[in-house]
């Protein structure tokens, strides 16, 4: 009966945690529970009383869950990491994909030059802006970003470039279309937010490559 109480406590304490984090919590709390139970029994408590006391000593499961979610990976963060790893593998495992990603912005820049020479200035301007932005974003696998301080500089630069590109592309209409920009950029903000949270939770030595970007 009280084992069910412990399982119930664990279910609530591991709510929304990643599978590995939840397994870790279950293992450490079970170990703790066993020791508390043994000690209570050696002090003269009955088995039921020892079980009850051991669970009560753990305190409120929701409070523990709230604290665990601040220090261990949540299910959402684990999903972001998995998706990021999949993307990184898809890009980095094939050399030609990396080169194509670099070739696209270069092609855009060359096309812009051609258009500029033929007199289509407005289209050329848009292509230059797009090419510049893409060159910065797609060139990531070629950049030497593998320390936390470089990663921080890179992230600031990336957002600065992205905002500058959007401001240049939309010009005076940037404010007018801000709702559109915010809606389009929202997924990126969200992923960036999740990654910032993951960075706080994982030791630097365990960071996958994607966390540097």
């Amino acid at each position, binding site marked *: 009966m009280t084992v069910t109480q412990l399982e119930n406590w664990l279910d609530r304490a591991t709510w929304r945690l990643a599978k590995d984090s939840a397994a870790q919590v279950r293992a450490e*709390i079970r*170990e*703790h529970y066993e020791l508390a139970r043994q000690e209570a029994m050696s002090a003269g408590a009955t088995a039921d009383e020892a079980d009850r006391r051991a669970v009560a000593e753990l305190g409120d499961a929701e409070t*523990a869950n709230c604290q665990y979610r601040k*220090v261990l990976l949540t299910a959402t963060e684990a999903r972001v990491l998995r998706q990021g790893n999949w993307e990184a593998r898809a890009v980095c495992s094939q050399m030609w994909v990396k080169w194509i990603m670099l070739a696209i912005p270069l092609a855009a820049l060359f096309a812009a030059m051609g258009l500029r020479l033929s007199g289509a200035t407005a289209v050329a301007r848009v292509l230059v802006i797009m090419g510049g932005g893409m060159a910065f974003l797609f060139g990531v696998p070629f950049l030497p970003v593998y320390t936390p301080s470089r990663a921080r500089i890179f992230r600031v630069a990336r957002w600065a470039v992205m905002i500058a590109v959007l401001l240049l592309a939309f010009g005076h209409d940037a404010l007018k279309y801000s709702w559109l920009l915010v809606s389009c950029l929202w997924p990126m903000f969200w992923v960036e937010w999740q990654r910032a949270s993951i960075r706080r939770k994982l030791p630097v030595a365990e960071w996958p490559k994607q966390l540097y970007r």
Partner: protein
Amino acid sequence: MNFKGTLPTLILEALRHEPSHGYRIAQQIKERSRGVLDFKEGTLYPALHKLENDGLVKSYAGVEEGRTRRYYRITESGRRALSKDRAQWREVSQAVTVLLGEV
């Protein structure tokens, strides 16, 4: 007694002399404070994970009475953080003692 925010320092102090596991750390804090600092043990492990994420303690698997347990030991950064916390605590407690007219 509510001692929110001081748990990480108490954990570091408990680990100062020798590595230990979660249950023993909790008992040590309760015993050494003669039961005054009573806290819910479910909150101990998140604090230990936070200390580990910050590089102040390191965990490893050890065997006690034939059972594998997760042990924690304090790191050099942990010792430095502990002496800094101790100095801060002395200052604060002296100031509060003076304010409450205990001296």
